[in-house]
């Protein structure tokens, strides 16, 4: 019996030691897992952006683009995030919506800017989307919502344009998990605080949306893709408590007004 226990223990130990020894090797680098993942993300991002570019009109007005770019650059600089990895595109659409696509694409609808009462509200939503990109939520959501097989067929070019369109629709208008949303909200508050932007305005924006939550309107996509706005506003307020109060506006009030005017044209 003693012999069996000894031999059994040695066998188990041998397996564990093999596992441990093998885990010391950087397999991720050996198999270029990261490179493959990055390439897939790049392809998917470009594919989705092509879909939106074809169906919506992009706003290329230099004043609008520069204003939004100033906000994003400020947030990135303050939080030491590489600005170059984000590709910001503003689309002319009445929907109150903004979303992140793979490979750092950040799409903002003009409806969101026009419905933001002040720049802090817009900055809050942008920070929330940046958080989704930084926390790698976009790819996770894609895998969960449309499945790995569809993603592989899309990146290898074996699927039709309809599949890409359908997937683009899902990524722009369906919700993340509640826990993932919370994670992005909290990260967004951190970004806002470091950038000296009032995060309470972001919470106010959510409160405002929650009032409209029952209104059946097609323009409120960001609400349908981000449910429980009221609850989210509450924990943002709670998390923001006691944080910095020395706020600084990113855009001058004239620039903000001009931005909205340009979009109304």
């Amino acid at each position, binding site marked *: *019996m003693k*012999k*069996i226990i000894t*031999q*059994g223990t*040695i*066998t188990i130990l041998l*397996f564990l030691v*093999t*596992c*441990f020894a*093998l*885990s010391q*090797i*950087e*397999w*991720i680098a050996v*198999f270029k*897992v990261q490179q493959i993942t990055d390439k897939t993300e790049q392809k998917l991002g470009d594919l989705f952006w092509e879909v939106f570019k074809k169906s919506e009109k992009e706003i290329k007005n230099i004043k609008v683009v520069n204003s939004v770019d100033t906000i994003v650059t400020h947030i990135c600089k303050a939080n030491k995030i590489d600005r170059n990895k984000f590709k910001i595109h503003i689309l002319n659409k009445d929907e109150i919506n903004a979303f992140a696509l793979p490979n750092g694409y950040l799409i903002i609808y003009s409806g969101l800017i026009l419905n933001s009462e002040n720049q802090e509200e817009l900055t809050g939503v942008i920070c929330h989307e940046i958080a989704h990109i930084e926390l790698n939520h976009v790819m*996770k959501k894609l895998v*969960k919502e449309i499945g*790995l097989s569809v993603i592989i067929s899309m990146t290898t070019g074996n699927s039709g344009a309809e599949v890409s369109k359908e997937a683009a629709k899902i990524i722009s208008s369906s919700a993340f998990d509640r826990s993932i949303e919370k994670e992005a909200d909290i990260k967004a508050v951190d970004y806002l605080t470091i950038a000296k932007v009032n995060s309470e305005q972001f919470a106010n924006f959510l409160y405002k949306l929650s009032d409209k939550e029952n209104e059946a309107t097609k323009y409120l996509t960001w609400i349908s893709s981000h449910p429980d706005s009221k609850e989210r506003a509450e924990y943002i307020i709670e998390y923001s408590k006691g944080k910095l109060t020395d706020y600084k506006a990113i855009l001058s009030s004239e620039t903000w007004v001009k931005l909205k005017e340009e979009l109304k044209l």
Partner: protein
Amino acid sequence: MIYIKQFSYEPGEHEAETASNSYLMSLIAIIVGLPLPIINLIATLIFYLSNRKSTYFVRWHCTQALLSQLSMLFINSYGFCWSVSIIFTEETITNNYIAYLIAAIIFNLTELIVTIYTAIKTRKGIHVEWWFYGPLTNIICKSKS
């Protein structure tokens, strides 16, 4: 790892063939080509149950094959669950995961080679006892006489 020993009696031609088949049953998953780790075990278990009233030599080798499959089931099931969670949940591919898979493949390959070797030897009526599984089988499987 494996020891050739003298069995308590000389097995007959038919006994040697049946005992050898018990090892071949454990290779069935490769033939079926299914990734499910439980297939091997089920095949070996069915063979074991249908031969439990057979001669001592046959029973002994059926038990050794079954025991070895049982421990591989744990290793493979864990790897299988891990892979499934990577595909369907938020889990990502890590160094530890790849290391576990390679370790599992090494152990599976070793088991495969030993299984084929034992099947060949047993077919010739030679009694082969494995490290750990042999002594364990000796405790579980007793001669009726």
